[in-house]
């Protein structure tokens, strides 16, 4: 089913009112205290006080209703529709099933049929939806910052194209971000053929350059090496966050979870060894985590190579602890042989990474637990040096026209490139992107592009399968597709995005009206994975271990939420509590507690971090389990033109250099004396002895007999069918936050801004608690997603004086927002503190486009109302109605909560606990199953599966 070009039909009246009221973009995000409409407030007060017995919501007795002029095919009012498409991240396609209501995209879900994601998503993909409605998007073309129309742009382009035609494109440069799109690739080739002297450059802040370089060192050509974590029984990661944020997270987490799941039931092993300077999601779930400075990590790789008799590797001398860890790791590798994988972080020295590749070859991993393919990202002609070449040429005045697509070097490139100055040397500068960002500010022309949800296009998923991108909604603004803009640069204004896309796939899919095309589009992707490339026997190159550097080593990593800064305008991601720190709306200088103690610093104290002449200032965060000689910084902050992400945090670009973008040795840290306010959602993480998260040995895995019902004065809950329940497997949860964002998108959870979060008023219905246990220098890490427990004997229900917190027959603690008067007793009584309160009016002043992103099946909560997770009640009701209309029971897995759906590791399972066949019952039957705060006797419907204890000799 091709997407009919819907128009944005506001759901009757509401959006019109919104438009009238449209105030700031995300007022809540700035001052929490949204400009509540006093007039309405008084009206409500008046109405309700005067008309006792009325619910006080009869504003307009007969609001307008706007029917369609002609109803689009298949539209049923109030019924959502799903379309298979994709959103791009880091150049890769993230295949999604996009839900629309009356033509408004309201939710992105993983594409179940797609082998890479298997229906799961990460936080970035969930938040991509809000990117479409981002009020800071540029709404029309601009010339030197002044809004203009496409006519002017076209004129300028055609004139310029004529000049370039004459000059065979001499001096024309195209700069893009990472591209996997076959169509864009094709068009760029065409452009280069037309203008032989033109050149194409690529700038992607977070890239695989060093990885590919390592592959070239090893195999003689750049190959993309990926672990097959569903096969790998032993995985050794050296500061390589395989399960961490990034385009690969979903597919690799899925694969790892598959292996882990098999291991849980005794099929094969699942050993994860991690050596890293600072805790990563991978390190947190690894059974053998070793804290090592970057230099030590390198040494360990060499040592491992030596231990496995890889040629050219000379075993360095290791401290006993590391030697012991290495011994275990090597033993495990020998055990698993080909079913093992050794990975080194993509930002490490290529020589070291190359060594890891050779270890893998030696183990015979390729073809089993690792695969090598040609890179999916289209390699720029100059490879890794592509961008520096461009800058050099620009400086030398060899660049006449520069067109920048989806890249923001002015912000994201290390300062010493001097991008701004270099750009000044270019005669005509054109910027095409979603936002008028820092780079656009240095360009003559800004051409706004279509968001992935409103454009035609294609891109490769991480497994190389091409995804077809189709529009779910007609563009809101005067924007153009990237492919079209590429044509425009050449003075061609005839092409349309769909046509250009069709042309790319003509040979494979034929005519766009044809069956093949329509099936492919309905399916959302074309099932041709990247062919695995044969790996030649590696070249031997001796590796010398670098001497341990003095001073601190600074590692720069992408931010787990706003990535390289390109997502900084997204309030969902800004307010997403980062793993381990639970920080929002900020980046920090992460150091070891020991170091903080030595310098007498506490969290939030601003320090000055200097490397040679370059330096920056930022608040510190003492991270348990971090190497004392390492400092971690994240990208993505200190942006100067980025909507809500503007002037938040500090820019790490000040420290990075073209030569050393990721790792800087010999850094010096000094206190500045003043402190900054940080907004963390969790103030305490020390588990010290509490049993909130439990661990169990795999040996006692046999299902436990159901305990006899303990005597109780209270009547048992009615056991009519269905009865909803949930389990969260703490052995599978990697704390990736996908569930949190999914919940936020599904349930219209408001964004409240840094000030309110700092006050402890964040609104996430589902939070991921992070705990550390043991010595702060080298603790064990635990993640625990905490939704509402849906207690069978819920204190909140007894507390509410007005019946706003009630128990439904199918076992939910429903919260009736419109009945709530905000006594907050329910929250006081809640032992899990999962309830969230609307301290201010967080919603009514949102911009109209932001309102359009909301899920119409969920009430938008008013000021002074308590809210909380309700197992996605709206989905349950919808499923119930479908089942009833079809006169059948609700099938297991038919109703899935947003968090469950998003979870890349299947840690969350939801279902009917009276259905003996259901997955949730199977999980609850396991010996690992336990209830949080059992002693409070609230009989939670949400239970947890204990994390598995590491077994002697791995496991």
């Amino acid at each position, binding site marked *: 089913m091709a997407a009919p070009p819907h128009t944005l039909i506001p759901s009757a009246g509401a959006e019109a009112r919104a438009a009238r009221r449209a105030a700031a973009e995300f007022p809540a995000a700035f001052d929490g205290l949204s400009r509540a409409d006093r007039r309405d407030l008084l009206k409500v007060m008046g109405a309700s006080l005067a008309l*006792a017995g009325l*619910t006080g919501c009869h504003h307009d007795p007969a609001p307008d*209703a706007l*029917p369609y*002029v002609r109803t689009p095919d298949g539209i049923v009012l*109030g*019924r959502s529709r799903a379309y298979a498409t994709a959103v791009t991240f880091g150049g890769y396609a993230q295949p999604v099933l996009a839900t629309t209501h009356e033509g408004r995209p309201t939710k992105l879900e993983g594409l179940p049929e797609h082998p890479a994601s298997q229906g799961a998503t990460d936080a970035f993909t969930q938040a991509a939806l809000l990117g479409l409605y981002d009020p800071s998007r540029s709404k029309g073309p601009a010339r030197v910052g002044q809004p203009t129309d496409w006519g002017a742009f076209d004129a300028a382009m055609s004139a310029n194209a004529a000049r370039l035609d004459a000059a065979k494109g001499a001096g024309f440069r195209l700069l893009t971000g990472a591209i996997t799109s076959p169509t864009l690739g094709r068009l760029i080739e065409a452009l280069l053929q037309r203008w032989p002297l033109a050149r194409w450059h690529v700038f992607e802040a977070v890239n695989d350059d060093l990885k590919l370089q390592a592959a070239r060192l090893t195999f003689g050509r750049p190959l993309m090496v990926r672990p097959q974590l569903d096969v790998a029984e032993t995985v050794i990661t050296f500061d390589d966050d395989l399960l961490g944020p990034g385009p690969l997270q979903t597919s690799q987490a899925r694969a790892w979870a598959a292996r882990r799941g098999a291991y849980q039931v005794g099929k094969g092993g699942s050993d994860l060894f991690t050596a890293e300077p600072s805790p990563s999601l991978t390190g947190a779930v690894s059974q053998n985590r070793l804290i090592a400075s970057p230099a030590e990590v390198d040494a360990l790789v060499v040592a491992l190579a030596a231990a496995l008799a890889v040629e050219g590797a000379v075993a360095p001398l290791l401290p006993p602890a590391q030697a012991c860890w290495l011994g275990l790791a090597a033993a495990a590798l020998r055990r698993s042989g080909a079913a093992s994988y050794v990975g080194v972080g993509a930002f490490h020295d290529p020589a070291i990474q190359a060594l890891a590749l050779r270890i893998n070859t030696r183990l015979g991993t390729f073809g089993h637990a690792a695969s090598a393919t040609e890179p999916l990202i289209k390699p720029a002609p100059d490879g890794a040096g592509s961008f520096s070449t461009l800058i050099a040429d620009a400086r030398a005045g060899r660049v006449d026209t520069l067109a920048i697509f989806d890249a923001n070097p002015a912000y994201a490139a290390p300062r010493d490139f001097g991008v701004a100055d270099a750009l000044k040397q270019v005669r005509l500068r054109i910027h095409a992107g979603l936002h008028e960002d820092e780079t656009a500010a240095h360009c003559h022309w800004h051409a706004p592009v279509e968001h992935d949800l409103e454009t035609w296009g294609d891109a490769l998923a991480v497994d190389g399968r091409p995804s077809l991108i189709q529009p779910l909604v007609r563009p809101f603004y005067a924007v153009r597709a990237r492919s079209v803009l590429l044509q425009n640069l050449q003075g061609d204004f005839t092409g349309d995005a769909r046509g250009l896309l069709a042309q790319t796939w003509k040979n494979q899919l034929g005519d766009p009206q044809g069956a093949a095309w329509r099936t492919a589009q309905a399916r959302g992707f074309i099932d041709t994975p990247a062919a695995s490339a044969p790996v030649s026997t590696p070249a031997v190159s001796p590796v010398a271990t670098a001497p341990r550097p003095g001073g601190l080593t600074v590692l720069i990593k992408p931010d787990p939420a706003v990535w390289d800064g390109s997502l900084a305008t997204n309030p969902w991601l800004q307010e997403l509590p980062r793993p381990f720190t639970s920080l929002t709306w900020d980046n920090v200088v992460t150091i070891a507690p020991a170091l903080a103690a030595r310098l007498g610093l506490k969290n939030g104290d601003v320090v000055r971090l200097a490397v040679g002449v370059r330096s920056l200032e930022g608040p510190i965060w003492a991270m348990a389990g971090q190497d004392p000689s390492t400092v971690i910084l994240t990208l993505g902050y200190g942006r100067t033109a980025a909507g809500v992400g503007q002037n938040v945090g500090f820019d790490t670009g000040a420290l990075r250099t073209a030569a050393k973008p990721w790792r800087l040795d010999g850094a010096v840290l000094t206190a500045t004396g003043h402190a900054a306010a940080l907004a963390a959602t969790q103030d305490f993480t020390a588990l010290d002895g509490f049993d909130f998260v439990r661990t169990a040995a795999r040996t006692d895995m046999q299902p436990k007999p159901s305990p006899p019902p303990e005597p109780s004065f209270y009547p048992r809950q009615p056991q009519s069918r269905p009865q909803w329940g949930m389990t969260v497997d703490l052995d599978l949860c990697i704390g990736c936050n996908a569930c949190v964002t999914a919940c936020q998108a599904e349930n219209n959870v408001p964004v409240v801004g840094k000030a309110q979060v700092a006050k402890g008023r964040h609104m996430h219905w589902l939070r991921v608690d992070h705990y550390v246990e043991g010595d702060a220098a080298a603790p064990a890490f635990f993640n625990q997603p905490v939704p509402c427990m849906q207690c069978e004997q819920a204190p909140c229900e007894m507390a509410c004086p007005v019946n706003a917190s009630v128990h439904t027959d*199918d076992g939910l603690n429903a919260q*009736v927002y419109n009945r709530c008067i905000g006594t907050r007793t329910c929250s006081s009584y809640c032992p899990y503190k999962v309830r969230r309160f609307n301290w201010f009016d967080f919603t009514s002043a949102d911009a109209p486009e932001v309102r359009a992103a909301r899920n119409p099946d969920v009430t938008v909560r008013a000021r002074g109302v308590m809210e909380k997770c309700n197992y996605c009640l709206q989905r349950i009701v919808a499923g119930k109605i479908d089942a*009833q209309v079809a006169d059948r029971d609700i099938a297991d897995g038919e109703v899935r909560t947003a968090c469950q759906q998003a979870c890349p590791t299947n840690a969350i399972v939801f279902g009917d606990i009276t259905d003996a066949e259901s997955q949730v019952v199977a999980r609850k039957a396991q010996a690992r199953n336990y209830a949080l705060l059992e002693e409070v006797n609230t009989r939670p419907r949400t239970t947890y599966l204990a994390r598995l204890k590491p077994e002697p000799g791995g496991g």
Partner: protein
Amino acid sequence: MTQIFRPSADIWLRLTVVLVFFIVLGGGLFITGLARSSYATRQGWPIDQTVPFSHKHHAGDLGIDCRYCHVDVERGPFAGIPPTYTCMTCHSQVWTGAPMLAPVRDSLASGQPLVWRRVAKLPGYVYFDHQIHVDRGVPCVECHGRMDEMPLAYRANALEMRFCLGCHRDPAPHLKPTDQVTRMDWSGWDKVPAHLAFGQAEMRRFHIDPVKLTDCGLCHR
């Protein structure tokens, strides 16, 4: 000591006390009464529309089935207000030049939707699903009244929460044969003895359980 009050003062005092009592009582009664009045609920107040569409004429006299225009009623939560195209299916043949239909023709020509004013509007936090009600045999007339007798549509019932609960707490009397949901006149129904047990039978057939029907989460989320 001089007299301050006249002898009648005592009477007056008692009177005032009584009066105050009744004013308070009356005030309470008045407010609760007002809340239930058709003034507050708009029950029975015809609403002017840009196009004075007569359900009496179309549904009553011409006997057009509700579902001809309200197509989504059997497959979605909203019955749906018909698109301009639906009006024009007939009015491109009949009354083609009628001035009162000008807005409809304009809408078709300009592509701008007709603007209707809602008659049966529920608050935003109430999620009512037409599909399941129709599917279970709750006839339109139960909530919307005798649309076939309304020249200009009006709200036949107050549509307050107690109105919904009245049915959800005791569904049986309101259930009718699923194949006759659009039937308007049910006056004769209860006369037939066989029909008295009909509702109960339907409840058994559809496993309708009033306990479940009064779950708050059913309509509020």
